[in-house]
Each structure stands twice: as structure tokens, then as C-alpha cells.
């Protein structure tokens, strides 16, 4: 009993919205910076994610019904609807779970299957999930994916199943899943660091998407580590989660509005852990 009590007590700390000051005692706060000036929309990140995270291939029929399982998708927009031709190309946006600090998905879970970890991740505990899909309905980024089917029956005909990554599970029907920032890699790195009585070093591991990205558009690291590349990028672009008083910070608070950092839909006060850097185009007549 006490363990459950413990879980619920601690859990409520993490649930505090950022307007309540949020949670300040992170061990790590894994974050990303994604440079849309570098991103070419090639989809290497997404396929790398399939390979790393045992994502099911669902086939065209189920894909059409929206039952796809790509934790990381590259959204593509056309921003010049009035022109005869898309003269400035496409707008690409790699979109995965933003690991919100004040995640809308967390408080609605009736069974605490999705919760906030001391690493600042929105965790999904598969064996706890009962498939209410409330979290999915509450996610403004649409990055949660529900197993409507037992994909393991069809997605990995032998011997394709031999590729499955043993460091994480294959999810069954009725379970919600989503990007974990490659928590299995985080776990391995943390275990290794602990075995060597040291802290996790910046750059000693990265997520599958960041590792694959041909243009290095995706940067991953610990926002609690002042020396990490990701922290420096956030600072360079004057993006931070909270101000000195612990109040939520928004893009309009930036001292230099010309800097490129922003967080998608941050006006919803979700406190995302992913910073994007604005896409750049020449202004040519």
C-alpha cells in the first residue's frame, strides 16, 4: 500500500502546471533543439525511430484509418496557398512527443499509466495502461499512438522479429504508446555512468533520430546540464522554460526577437522540452 501512496504523493508534485511553478527538482531534463534551417524533411529520423523502438508497420488499410504508429513524423506544409507554384518549397516539421513539463496528457490518465519522471519525461507505463485514450485526446501535438490491434501478430513475420530491440517491449493491443526520447538509451547511459560513479556526459549518447539525421538538425541533451550543447542552444536563442521567478516564459519575452528559437504551441502553457529554430528562406522577388 505504501508504495502506491508514495507514487501518488510524488506524482502530484510533477503534475503541477508551470503556472503553479512547475516541478523544480529534476535530476535531468532531457530536451531537444531542432533546427528547421537544417532539416531537409528526408525522413531518416522517422525510419531510425522505427528501427530503434519496435514500431509496428500497420499496412495501408490501417494507415488510412489513422492507426499508424510513427512516433516521429515529418509534417509537411505548403505556406504559399495563393501562388500558382510553391516557390519557396515546403515547410518540414519533425514532430514527436514534446515531453511537456506541464503535460496535458498526464493529469487525465485514470490509472497513472502516464506520469512525469524525475528526468522530465512524459512516461508511458505500458503494462499499467488500460487504453482509455484520454491522454491522446488531450494531447495538442497529436503524438500519442494507440494500439488498436495486436500488431505483433502481423507486423514482424518471421524472421523480421529478430530485428526487434530487446531493450524495450513490443506493445500489445489496447495500449497507448509514444516517443520516449529513446529512454532505453537514456537508461543504459545512466546505468553506465552510475557504474563508473560519474554523471552522464553530454554527447555520450543520443536519440536514434538525432543520430541518423544527415544534417544534424536534431540536437539532444540534458537541459539541467549547463554545459550541454542543447542548453547552450536554448540559451543562445533565449528560450527558457521559466524566468528567474519561476514564472512561465514565452517567446515574446525574448530580449532579442530576431533570434530563431520557439516552442510549438507554447501559448498553451505546456512547457515543451523541444525547442525549434525557425526555418529560413531568402526573400527573392
Amino acid at each position: 500500500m505504501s508504495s502506491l501512496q508514495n507514487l501518488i504523493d510524488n506524482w502530484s508534485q510533477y503534475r503541477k502546471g508551470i503556472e503553479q511553478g512547475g516541478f523544480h527538482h529534476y535530476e535531468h531534463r532531457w530536451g531537444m533543439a531542432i533546427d528547421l534551417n537544417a532539416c531537409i524533411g528526408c525522413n531518416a529520423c522517422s525510419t531510425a525511430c522505427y528501427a530503434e523502438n519496435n514500431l509496428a508497420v500497420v499496412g495501408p488499410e490501417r494507415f488510412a484509418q489513422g492507426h499508424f504508429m510513427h512516433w516521429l513524423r515529418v509534417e509537411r506544409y505548403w505556406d504559399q496557398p495563393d501562388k500558382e507554384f510553391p516557390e519557396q518549397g515546403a515547410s518540414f516539421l519533425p514532430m514527436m512527443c514534446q515531453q511537456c513539463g506541464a503535460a496535458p496528457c498526464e493529469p487525465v490518465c485514470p490509472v497513472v499509466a502516464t506520469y512525469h519522471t524525475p528526468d522530465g519525461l512524459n512516461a508511458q507505463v505500458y503494462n499499467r495502461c488500460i487504453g482509455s485514450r484520454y491522454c491522446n485526446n488531450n494531447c495538442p501535438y497529436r503524438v500519442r499512438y494507440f494500439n488498436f490491434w495486436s500488431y505483433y501478430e502481423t507486423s514482424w513475420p518471421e524472421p523480421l522479429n529478430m530485428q526487434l530491440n530487446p531493450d524495450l517491449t513490443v506493445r500489445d493491443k489496447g495500449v497507448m504508446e509514444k516517443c520516449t526520447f529513446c529512454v532505453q538509451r537514456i537508461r543504459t547511459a545512466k546505468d553506465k555512468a552510475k557504474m563508473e560513479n560519474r554523471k552522464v556526459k553530454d554527447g555520450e549518447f543520443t536519440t536514434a533520430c538525432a543520430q541518423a539525421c544527415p544534417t544534424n538538425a536534431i540536437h539532444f541533451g540534458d537541459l539541467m546540464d549547463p554545459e550541454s550543447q542543447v542548453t547552450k542552444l536554448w540559451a543562445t536563442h533565449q528560450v527558457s522554460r521559466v524566468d528567474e521567478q519561476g514564472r512561465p516564459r514565452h517567446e515574446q519575452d525574448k530580449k532579442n526577437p530576431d533570434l530563431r528559437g520557439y516552442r510549438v504551441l507554447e501559448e498553451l502553457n505546456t512547457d515543451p522540452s523541444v525547442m525549434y529554430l525557425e526555418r529560413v528562406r531568402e526573400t527573392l522577388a
Partner: protein
Amino acid sequence: MKDLLRRWLLTFLCVGGFLIGTSAAASEAPTIKYPVPPPGDYNGDVVEQPIEFPHDIHTKVNKINCLYCHTYGRRSKVAGIPPTSKCMGCHRVIATDKPRIQKLTEYWEKRQSIPWKKVHDVPDFVHFTHERHLKKFIFDNEDLVQNLSVDTVAPVCAACHGDLREMTVARKVKPMTMGWCVACHEANGGPGDCWKCHK
């Protein structure tokens, strides 16, 4: 002659293999603080193995340290079954007349892996790492490290696997349920975060 060779070999293995001093000398159990064992028992099946491996002869009689064979546990999440080469290291000369050893030798000579049956298992969605547990309960325990031997190590392993010094083939004697894991984590200060163990 054969007996002498055996003794020499064992000593050599224990010293060279695991830096544990002479195993025979450490028969007196010193006062070592062990973790609070989680309550609960389980009456597991006797699993038939391809070779009826006698844990008791190796540990209780010959005093070979658990970690001499299951050495991966120190460095990996998996403790692992020792490679056949390790068995053959001793059994090229020891007890070669025994049927079990002859069976082992047959596998070795045919270059076949031994198809051991899994006795202890956790569900697919659980991340359990031997490495971290062994570090905490063995290698970070100064008193224990000073007196490393099968009799000091076995009680640590016994928390989850039962006392293998009293078994031939391994048998599941602990429940290995989540409640049981959590009880131990609470009693011994283990982490309480879901994602520490769930994957």
C-alpha cells in the same frame, strides 16, 4: 594425483578468476550487513535441464563463487549462462568419467550450444539489471568485498534466486512479482520511479 590437480585447479580458478583470496579460508562467515530480504516464497517447478547441473557441488562442496561462472552479472543487465568454454576449462580434466560431464563434452565437441531452460524470468516489459544490483549489494558493500567468497556472495543472490548452495538445478523459490520487487526497493532504498523498471 587427480585429487591434487583438482584442488590446485580450484584454487587457481578462484584466485585468478575472481580475486577472492583462497576460498577455503573464508569459510567462517564474517559479520556482513546484508540487504533486507523481501518477504515471500514461491514453490517453483523442478525444471528438467539438458544436463542436470549440480549447483550444490560447485558452490557448497567446491566453494566456487557464484560470480565465477555467472560473471556477466557484474558488467551487464544479464547474469547469463556461462559459455561452454568456461565449463570445459575445468572439466577437460575434472570428473571426466561422470555421465553429466560426458554429455557436456559431447556438446562441446559437436560445437553445439547447450539448450538450457529458463527458470527465472521477468516479463517483457520489465527492465531488470544485475549489474546495478550487484554493485549496490556486493561491490559497494565494503565488508563483503573484504571477504568475498561463495558464502558471502550467495546470500545476496539468494534474495531473488534462493540459496543455490542447497539446490542441484535451479528452481524458482521467490515470487518475482512487482509487489515483491517494490517491497524490496522500499526496504532497501531502491528507486520508486516506474520507468526505472518498466520499459
